[in-house]
């Protein structure tokens, strides 16, 4: 991210300035050691531990642990939930950003605050609110029971909770980006005879595609990895309402550590792929993202 600004050696004043605004070598090395040591202890070591624990009985045991019906069902459910939740929030994010970024109206900043709300709520509360609405003793519970619709302890509840926790990602990336791009290009397209849809597909969308991908990447990682919110609404029925993170918990509590860490290693791989793609996007298309431009 940051490029080190070394004082140019050619400038005559440089040595004195560098000494005055830099730290002595020992302090520099001490700070680097402290920073890297902290990251190594708190970030790298847990990550390494996941893979070592998963492979502790060899690659055969690792693959066997993954190839069980319950684990495969958990993987399928996680993919299904992300495949529903992410597109929902993608559509919402684009439409909300269109209204908020391209038009002036009162109450805009209140709306942005509301969109950010799910980020400031505990994951457990994100699940709790849906139980309060749709649970057996919830507001709509009796009606749902009478009509034989199950939301809580079933897949719809898991999808709802996942949509809630990933709600802001796409919108909060697109709003500042589209605000910055303004409306001139769209106005030009319209004045040249394009209709609204053509303008959106041919002008707006190409302008925001990398930002959109960035938002989708982050919401997908969260959707597949969410634990607290999903845990509250899932009911933990093996093979039916268990997502991968929940399956990690079940296997861990059964002392099936190889199984638990094998599933955890898949999620850790997902996190690593997400980080690599995120860094690539920031590095290659940083000027077309809102996050990297403050």
């Amino acid at each position, binding site marked *: *991210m*940051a490029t*080190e600004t070394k004082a140019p050696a050619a400038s005559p004043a440089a040595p004195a300035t560098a000494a*005055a*605004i*830099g*730290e002595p070598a020992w302090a520099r090395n001490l*700070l*680097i050691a*402290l*920073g*890297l040591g*902290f*990251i190594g202890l*708190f*970030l*790298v070591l*847990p990550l390494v531990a*996941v893979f070592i624990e998963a492979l502790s009985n060899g690659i055969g045991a690792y693959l066997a642990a993954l190839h069980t019906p319950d684990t495969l069902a958990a993987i399928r459910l996680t993919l299904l939930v992300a495949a529903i939740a992410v597109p929902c929030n993608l559509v*919402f994010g684009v*439409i*909300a950003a*269109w*209204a908020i970024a*391209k*038009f002036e109206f*009162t*109450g805009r900043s209140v709306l942005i605050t*509301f969109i950010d*709300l*799910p980020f*400031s709520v*505990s*994951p*457990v*509360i994100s699940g*709790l*609110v849906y*139980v*309060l*609405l749709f*649970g057996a003793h*919830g507001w709509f519970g009796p009606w749902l029971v009478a009509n034989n619709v199950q939301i809580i302890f079933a897949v719809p509840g898991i999808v709802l909770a996942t*949509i809630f926790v990933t709600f802001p990602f796409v919108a909060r990336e697109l709003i500042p980006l589209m605000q910055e791009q303004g*409306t001139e290009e769209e106005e030009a397209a*319209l004045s040249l005879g394009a209709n609204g849809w053509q303008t*959106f597909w041919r002008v707006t969308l190409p302008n925001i595609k990398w930002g959109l991908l960035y938002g989708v990447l*982050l919401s997908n990682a969260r959707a597949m*990895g969410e634990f*607290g919110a999903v845990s*509250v609404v899932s009911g933990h029925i093996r093979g039916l309402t268990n997502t*991968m993170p929940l399956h*990690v*918990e079940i296997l861990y509590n059964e002392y099936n550590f190889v199984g638990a860490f094998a599933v*955890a290693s898949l*999620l850790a791989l997902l*996190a*690593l792929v997400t*980080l690599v793609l995120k860094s690539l996007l920031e590095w290659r298309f940083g000027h077309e993202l809102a996050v990297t431009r*403050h």
Partner: protein
Amino acid sequence: MRVFARFLPRRAPSVLPGFGPALGFALAYLSIIVLMPLAALVLRPAELGFSGFVAVATQPRVLAALRLSFGASLIAAAINAVFGMIVAWVLVRYSFPGKRLVDALVDLPFALPTAVAGVALTALYAPNGWIGRLLQPLGIEVAFTPLGVVVALVFIGLPFVVRTVQPVLQDLDREVEEAAASLGASRWQTIVRVILPAILPALLTGFALALARGVGEYGSVIFIAGNMPLVSEIAPLLIVIKLEQYDYAGAAAVGVAMLSISFVMLLILNLLQRWHRGH
């Protein structure tokens, strides 16, 4: 859709189409997914009445859980404020091999599912784990104690501090430091009197974000905490327990208590920042 147009008058008329439908859809989706469920959270404890709410919120087990959640979050956020600032400083000011990799790694807690972090930290700090084994002879127990909660919250909170301090540190004008130096300030004086005040608002913001995240954190904590009532049981877990007993109003009451305390703490931090800016 006309209703919205009248309700939220457009200041500058725009030639772009689709404002009404877009805003209408956004408001409807927002209301169904976010606002209505949160309204249920706020209204549900009302059936207990105010005295009932206070009775739930002051149960010894609830008080202990709230104390642990907020106490551990404060300690973890303080640790992250110190080390997060060092990490941000090192990433902005120094060059060393693998710097880009370290920079990307800082976001790991954002990307790694919390349950994975939870089992990994527990494996490390359990009495037979890599780190737990080293600490046990010293008489330090981390896993299954409140200390374990702090460790998990340090993991979760680090990127908040680094990512808020880093851009401010990057935009800091080096000439001011040179000016301080040329006026005879020692490097230490420059850091304490010039650089620190400039990044303090960002540091406070990062601290507040890490704190807020820590209070609500669930997945990474429940594995390492041991979850002993009154000792190492966090407030979000208590919500889950009350829900399992179908005590919906009680669960909502704990949730509202958590959110209210968080809100007051963030308000205080916000005021601190304003006060700092006023000086």
